[in-house]
């Protein structure tokens, strides 16, 4: 390398070092600090929702109005299609719970002051998804956030503790139950009679081969004080890829 080349190399290295130095010496940038001024959920916090879990815990979250779509594709056991002539038993257990309950006529209030009625509160006890789960946002402001755990995921399940996951979902959410299977058109919605049958049977435990829940809000609670227990790590997403697109 020539003498001039070496001098340029030193200049660029110096600039690189200075870049790192300047980056380290910058204090938190002012735009974000400005954005941290106190912000209520609507004027006077009037846009907070008031929700009660099955366990009796009352919460006042400020809700995003963004849906979290939890998908576990239903197992297709035949390559012949989904016609009524082809049996597609839902034998594979991709998710399981130890109890479920459903409460209709739920209304949510969102951060912008709008409300949505006709929702259902589903309560899953010891909720675990064994494979093929995807959680993705829908209705975000120009983005989609996706969470894909590639092995068994706990969404309200801890050894030695009773964990409930309360989910406020839309009426067109579906589950596919192993004991209520007849064809691949066996979606069970919270607003149809099959779910009532499911409620009766799932007092012990149940599993299924598919799920598509459109969740407006979800919260885990336990038998601890105020419905909260620490150290149980009831939500576990192993080998998980999170992306923003």
């Amino acid at each position, binding site marked *: 390398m020539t003498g001039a080349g070496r001098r340029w190399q030193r200049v660029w290295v110096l600039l690189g070092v200075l870049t790192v130095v300047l980056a380290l010496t910058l204090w938190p940038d002012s735009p*974000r600090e400005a954005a*941290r001024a106190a912000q209520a959920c609507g004027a006077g916090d009037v846009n907070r929702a008031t929700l009660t879990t099955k366990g009796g815990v009352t919460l006042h979250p400020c809700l*995003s109005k963004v849906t979290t779509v939890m998908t576990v594709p239903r197992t297709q056991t035949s390559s012949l299609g989904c016609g009524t002539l082809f049996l597609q038993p839902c034998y594979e257990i991709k998710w399981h719970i130890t109890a479920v309950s459903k409460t209709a006529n739920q209304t949510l209030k969102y951060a912008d002051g709008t409300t949505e009625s006709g929702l259902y509160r589903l309560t899953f006890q010891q909720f675990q998804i064994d494979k093929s789960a995807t959680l993705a946002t829908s209705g975000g402001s120009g983005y989609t956030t996706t969470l894909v755990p590639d092995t068994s995921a706990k969404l309200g399940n801890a050894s030695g503790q009773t964990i409930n996951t309360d989910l406020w979902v839309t009426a067109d959410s579906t589950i596919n139950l192993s004991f209520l299977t007849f064809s691949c058109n066996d979606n069970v919605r919270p607003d149809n009679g099959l779910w009532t049958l499911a409620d009766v049977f799932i007092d012990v435990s149940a599993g299924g081969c598919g799920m598509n829940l459109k969740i407006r809000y979800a919260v885990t609670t336990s038998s601890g004080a105020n419905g909260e227990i*620490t150290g149980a790590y009831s939500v576990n997403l192993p*080998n998980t890829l999170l992306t923003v697109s």
Partner: protein
Amino acid sequence: MPLMLVAFAVMGGMVTLLRQDVLAAVVTYQGTTAKFSSGRVSGQDIGFGMAQVDVAGVGTRNVLAAGFATGTLDGLCVSQVQTLPVIGDVVIKLTAGDGNSTTREISATNVQLDITQLRGSGTGINLDGRVQIGMASQDVTTLAGVDNPLGAPTGTGWWGIDATAGDIFSAKGYLYDAEIGGPISLPGLRISVTPKAAGGTECWSTPGDATPVPH
């Protein structure tokens, strides 16, 4: 040469201040994301919320802001490639840690990472206490007594997760911005500027690759 000595002296001073828990830090990257990795990130009062950052020369970008009030890390690596005339691609890399996978030797308060992609391998992502999904980003709580600690846009359309505590194991990801508002302790801190042609390597190649995470 004298200028370079001054630069190194200033950088040495900054590193000393960081090690003495005196200096808060923000590391921003212009125009493109940086790669980061850690053996384990553990936080109290942890939250994830969609937010926006202004990226120099690019404009506004949506990110998932991950924040926690107090936290510890088992090793840290942050790297970015810059293309320079004559030299070509140069890897700027910050690493810290004690090399021991059983310790979380790095501690920090008021931390925020603006992420575009994250992979937690093995145990992955653990959330503890009351976990809420679907709340507005502005309502995610990390710092006690501070509203909207993630600096998220207000109103609907901005999704968040809030938890009492959380861990991310074997974390690898991309970020636009790493901000530590409180004291940080970075044992084993090293900052290197190495041309790729001279063997400079980033923290990892792809988030799911076998490159070991720092400890």
